């Protein structure tokens, strides 16, 4: 995402006791929606820390931001992509570089002021990303049969190099295209209530957020 000019981005101190960092705007909106659903949003500040390459520098700046001294919990969300261990390790190292406690495994909480947790999506162990988690929550939705058929059809009709690289993202978009408002982004769809937060797919994540 193209960044706004530094001339125009307003300053914002840390104002709430719990902070979650996501690696994009969609992730931020999804977590805001989930926290609202859980009734926790008033305690949380969800910030987009930019892409994964930005996390280390973002954390160095965040820890000296006014208000951060009062933060009691910090959660960092990262997609596993193709290498869950590597994704975890890079967040771990970024936390340490910022002088923060770093957990030894995903979804553990360590340290004090703040307590830190690394949330590797979709579940800490598997490859994938936020979209995989969201898709798991709608796998029983009737529209998903159509989505699967659509991608099966694409697979038969297109050369391999024309198939979407990140299938989970493509499938999530295809699912959202089946909704009443078909053009929403992932985060917008979360705000619109298109992801069923009560589905067991979110149980583990909800438990982590409740304990953060």
């Amino acid at each position, binding site marked *: 995402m193209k960044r706004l000019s530094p*001339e125009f981005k307003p*300053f914002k101190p840390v104002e709430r006791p719990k902070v979650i960092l996501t690696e994009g705007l969609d992730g931020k909106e999804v977590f805001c929606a989930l926290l609202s659903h859980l009734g926790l949003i008033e305690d949380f500040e969800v910030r987009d820390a930019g892409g994964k390459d930005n996390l280390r520098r973002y954390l160095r700046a965040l820890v000296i931001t006014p208000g951060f001294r009062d933060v009691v919990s910090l959660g960092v969300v990262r997609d596993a992509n193709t290498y869950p261990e590597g994704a975890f390790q890079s967040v771990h190292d970024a936390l340490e570089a910022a002088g923060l406690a770093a957990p030894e495994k995903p979804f553990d909480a360590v340290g004090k002021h703040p307590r830190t947790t690394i949330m590797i999506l979709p579940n800490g162990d598997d490859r994938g990303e936020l979209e995989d988690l969201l898709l798991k929550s709608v796998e029983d939705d009737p529209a998903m049969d159509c989505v699967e058929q659509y991608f099966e059809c694409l697979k038969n009709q297109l050369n391999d190099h024309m198939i979407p690289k990140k299938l989970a993202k493509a499938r999530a978009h295809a699912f959202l295209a089946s909704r009443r408002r078909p053009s929403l982004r992932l985060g917008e769809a979360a705000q619109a209530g298109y992801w069923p937060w009560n589905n067991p797919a979110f149980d583990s994540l909800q438990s982590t957020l409740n304990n953060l």
Partner: protein
Amino acid sequence: MYTSFKVKNFRCFKDLELGDLARINLIAGKNNVGKTALLEAFWIHQGGNNATLGLKIDAFRGIHEFNSQELLRDLFREFDSSRKIELSSYDDAGNTRRTIITECEQRITQFPLSENNENMTPEQETSSQLSEPLSSGIAFNYIDESGKGYEASMYLVEGNGKMRVQFDRASFPKRPVGTFLAAQSRTDPAVNAERFGNLRITKEQGEMVRILREIEPRLQSLDVIPRGGKPIVHGDIGLDRLVPLPLLGEGTNRLLSYSLAIAHAADGIVLIDEIENGLHYMVRADVWKAIAALARRYNVQVFSTTHSEGCIRVAHRAFVEDGQYDFRLHRLDRVADTIEAVTYDQETLAVALEDGLEVR
């Protein structure tokens, strides 16, 4: 050049450490966290054992009256003079220098302090009448990089029906200049004229013209002309006569004062309280670049306070564009009963500005 600075028991500071100092340093923070006090601490330390600076910094704050119980007691944290003040600097050559300020038993009483601080002499005479009994004095002990100490004390003495401040200073350490530009007052035009005159002697006046052109493009030249017995810098802005600089805008005069102070303080430090005051040009990158170039040329370290978001943003951009990022932003935070400092380098300031993280 200083790389770090420690302040103990001075003004509001219990035990402050300011690190990662650069050529140009901006100091931010909320109200009453000691931004000005930090500049004062630097200035006193730079002055070696010059105890008069203690009086001057109070005068800059508008305090011109003292009594026997409180002469410079306000320098001490919580007015508790039983705890000594320690100001310690560390430079890039590995040198350490310290200033220790303690109370000493002397006689002090109420007296007015002249605002004309530039002319303060080691024996500042006053005309006030004695109104307080015996009290304490104050001692400044400066320890240079070799460990040699230079002590000075200050107290009041009575003679011929008058009270005067007596300064005892056996020897003077050789120290580079420290110049303090207070927030509320303009530099005396005569002081600017003298500093400009010094640049004329060494044929460096053209640099000042170039810098002032950043905000007054009509300016062609500067000259010093006596008016009413006092020299004043005049500028040629294309009219059929020269114009006294004080008649031009506040921005022009402040930038002139900043620039002349830097040139005057070669190898030393310049302390500017609220650099953006009356100077919206400080949100222009080219003005920052000019100040930075001047500071490098004269090997001067600049410490300045600011409240301005725009000032911080543009200073950062100017140093990035300049390619020589010898700039740091320091913020003072009140944490429980202490003041702590955090420092932003190029990376942390960049990400804070890009992502909207508050820095002040």
